[in-house]
């Protein structure tokens, strides 16, 4: 203790006596100024961060704090030629709960389970789950959603959403296509015109804490969504529906595998109907046809079946056109001048091409006939002769000039290309078979388009559906235009072809396509499917009316009919019935 006091004394004494106070003081002052200097430096650093780097870090911080909730845009509707809405949106609601905002959990459980017809346990589990937002049920009808909203329950969120809705279910399913979970087009026009239909999503910017819970006080920033444009198409639901009926009918009576019917305006390429039965339900596009054993299928097999179901035979598949293709051979021959309607031919029932004996469908032969009669008889040897007169090079030239080598450019996805011999591989035998429509494949839309172009005066048209886009009020926004190449055949040849084809229907093989009081031109076809000798046929008929000034062209293709399989007996009546109904209708509609 004594020592301590001593030291205290010495301490005090030294502090005063040694004049050391000066250096102590000096040193303490240096500490202060050292601190001052460092604090100044730190203040400078703060200034740098909070003035010059402020924008950068503010943006980064906002990114961290703000959550985007998108507002879906209403998808544009699709309207047919009469302005009938054929693809629409239905408002559906998603019901969710926000754990932190629920004030009366029992009431919430009671109301939601009652209104949504869910078990109380199911709802309670979700209500009591500690999460930022928990979905209870989606795709709830708008009325239900409104009813739940009317309870005004804290922590219950009713979000409205749009769901695609097709009022005609299966009608034109393969043309329209459908949309997926995000309202994006999957097949058909829905995907082709996605950019016009989809609109622009809006968003709600909200500020949240680190758990993602919205902070009410921070308010929200809203960018409204822009609805998509309506798409007006040339398809006429009346024609489509009648054509579908006919197709179903013939499929049933002839126990056919598939029936395709294409109706288009040969003058401008507008497609009025495109049927490919069996069709599927657009409102349930993932449901396989009834009777399909889905249990035993793997996911892959199921997807394969779905793809098969969605396939549009009119554009996605090719077939051997058979005798309908004689129209093309005839047009090429007439155009090149290797044949005239008056030229006479003799058919013994077969023709020798090099060492091959190619039979006519009438084995006893058609005897003596002029070119018009030969077409009416659909006489193979005559058309082989015409083809051979043209020669490979010329024939190939016209094949190309008619546009058969290219795709038609129809505004649907997945158009198949033409499968044709290479010119250098084409010898007399190949040329002979091509001349009457065999040994190569094209799509139905290709045939219809090419024939349209031949009979409309020689203008190669682009087949299409889309006419224009418009806003909700119907004000036009964009009118679509399609390429057309003129003079693929002369006007004269075109007129001759119309005349010949009218004869075919009037008194030739196509007389089953004759419509009382109308001038119809056309051509039948019966083609055997590959492999030959399987007994499987494709019966088809291509007709147009009025024959002197074609305004409508129809192509009916019946795949694998049972019993009678001739195009003239199976397919021609289909087109006749169709024309009987739609010709007066089109006249009324001012198409004529």
């Amino acid at each position: 203790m004594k020592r301590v006091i001593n030291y205290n004394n010495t301490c005090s004494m030294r502090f005063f006596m040694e004049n050391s106070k000066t250096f102590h003081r000096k040193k303490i002052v240096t500490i202060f100024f050292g601190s001052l200097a460092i604090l100044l430096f730190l203040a400078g650093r703060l200034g740098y961060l909070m003035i010059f780097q402020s924008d950068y870090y503010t943006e980064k911080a906002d990114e961290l704090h703000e959550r985007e909730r998108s507002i879906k845009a209403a998808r544009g509707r699709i309207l047919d030629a009469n302005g009938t809405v054929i693809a629409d949106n239905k408002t559906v609601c998603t019901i969710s709960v926000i754990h932190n905002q629920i004030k009366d959990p029992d009431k919430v459980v009671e109301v939601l389970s009652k209104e949504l017809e869910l078990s109380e346990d199911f709802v309670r589990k979700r209500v009591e789950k500690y999460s930022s937002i928990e979905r209870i049920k989606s795709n709830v009808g708008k009325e239900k959603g409104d009813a739940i909203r009317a309870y005004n329950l804290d922590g219950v969120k009713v979000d409205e959403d749009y769901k695609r809705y097709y009022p005609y279910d299966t009608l034109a399913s393969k043309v329209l296509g459908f949309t997926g979970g995000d309202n994006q087009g999957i097949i058909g026009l829905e995907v082709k015109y996605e950019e016009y239909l989809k609109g622009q999503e809006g968003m709600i910017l909200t500020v949240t804490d680190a758990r993602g819970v919205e902070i009410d006080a921070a308010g929200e920033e809203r960018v409204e969504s822009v609805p998509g444009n309506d798409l007006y198409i040339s398809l006429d639901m009346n024609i489509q529906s009648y054509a579908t009926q006919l197709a179903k009918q013939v499929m049933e009576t002839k126990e056919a595998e598939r029936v395709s019917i294409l109706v288009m305006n040969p003058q401008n390429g507008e497609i009025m109907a495109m049927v490919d039965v069996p069709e599927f339900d657009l409102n349930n596009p993932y449901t396989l046809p009834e009777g399909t054993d889905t249990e035993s299928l793997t996911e892959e097999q199921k997807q394969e079946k779905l793809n098969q179901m969605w396939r549009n035979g009119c554009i996605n598949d090719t077939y051997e056109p058979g005798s309908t293709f004689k129209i093309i051979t005839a047009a090429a021959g007439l155009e090149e001048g290797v044949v005239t309607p008056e030229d006479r031919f003799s058919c013994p029932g077969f023709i020798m091409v090099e060492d091959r004996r190619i039979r006519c469908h009438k084995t006893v032969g058609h005897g003596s006939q002029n070119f018009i009669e030969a077409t009416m008889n659909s006489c193979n040897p005559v058309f082989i002769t015409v083809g051979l007169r043209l020669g490979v090079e010329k024939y190939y030239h016209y094949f190309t000039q008619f546009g058969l080598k290219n795709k038609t450019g129809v505004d649907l996805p997945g158009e198949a290309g033409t499968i044709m011999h290479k010119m250098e591989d084409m010898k007399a035998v190949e040329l002979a078979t091509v001349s009457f429509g065999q040994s190569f494949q094209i799509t139905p839309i290709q045939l219809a388009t090419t024939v349209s172009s031949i009979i409309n005066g020689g203008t190669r048209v682009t087949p299409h559906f889309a006419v224009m886009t418009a806003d909700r009020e119907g004000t036009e926004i964009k009118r679509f235009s399609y390429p057309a190449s003129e003079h693929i055949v002369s006007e004269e040849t075109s007129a001759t072809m119309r005349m010949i084809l009218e004869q075919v229907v009037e008194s030739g093989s196509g007389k089953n396509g004759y419509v009382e009081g109308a001038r119809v031109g056309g051509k039948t076809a019966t083609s055997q499917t590959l492999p030959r000798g399987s007994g499987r046929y494709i019966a088809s008929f291509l007709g147009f009316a009025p024959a002197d000034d074609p305004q409508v062209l129809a192509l009916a293709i019946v795949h694998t009919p049972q019993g009678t399989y001739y195009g003239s007996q199976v397919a021609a009546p289909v087109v006749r019935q169709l024309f009987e109904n739609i010709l007066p209708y089109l006249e009324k509609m001012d198409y004529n």
Partner: protein
Amino acid sequence: MIVAERRFGNNQRRSKPAGQDIFFDYTLLFVVLFLLAFGLVMLYSASSYDASLHYEGDSAYFLKRQAISTVMGLVAMILVANIPYHFWERFAAIGVIISIVLIFLVMTPLGYEANGARRWIRILGFSIQPAEVAKLAIILFLASLICKMGRKTRSWKGFFTVLMVPAIIAVLVWQITENMSSAIIIFGIAVLMLYVSSPDYKRFILLGVVGVAVCVLAVFLIVKLSESQSASAVGVRGGRILAWLDPEAYASGKGFQTLQALYAIGSGGILGKGLGQSKQKLGFMPEAQNDMIFSIICEELGLFGAISILLMFLLLIWRFMVIANNATDLFGALLVVGVMGHIAIQVILNVAVVTNTIPNTGISLPFISYGGSSVMFLLAEIGLVLSVGRGIKLKDL
């Protein structure tokens, strides 16, 4: 300066008999009280979200606990301020021994872990951070030791003798309580006290240069190592250095807290978002009420608020200087220098960490960050300083 002081002192003059006029530093007291009150407000702002989430909706959980510690600290401060500071000199050695024992107690079942570090002990329901005790003990011990050694401290031998005990304690704090920042502070306090007691500069400049050189070399080696091998090869502390140099490259790991602090500071701008309006405290910023509270101050009160707080601390340091310079004896002066060093180092390191000026190391902001031991021992230290200040006779000023 002295002239100014005298005038100031005169203003503080009490109506007491002439010759007995004594000094009481109301400025210091005011600054401390202001910082405490401000600290509680900011603590509530920074912690209420976290508290209401984790303590059954009690948004004032941290505020209440801190308020209790603050009141206890103020009582301690008043007590200490009214006891002549020489009273404590007899506890100089025992204080160091007690703090060493407490540090070792962290390893026993009495110690407990929080926020991933084992730094606390719990005795009779009170939890104490031994490092805080050690800081006060070292200040007391060195003030006493340096006085006892007198001129001997000026030799190299004395130099190392004085630094030996704080060095040992610093190493213990660093290794046992895994608290490198407290170790730095303890050693820093010791160096500053020794610096004041010796007329020599060269030795300290040399020490400073060596220290800086070692740091630069370490950083250089770590960067080289991480480039030649991988970022994981440099260990935890090395990782912190790399995250310091480029926090955005380590955004999901070591750089996360630093980056969050920069977001808070940067987004505060000049005027800040307003009191209570911080977004970063809403779960984004780890330790928002603790080591990182300064970044929340920046975010809410802006550059203006941040610099105001730095000014308040500067004012505090200035008062320490005034009191130290006018202390009646070396022991008193050294006590004040110790406290001055403690607070100055801690403020500087905290702000430097939060602004990513130096690598991240857990360090709290005196009087403002959440922490009971810290605020109690700091207030006890302020009590000591006030007690030293009371010894000043106005005629000496």
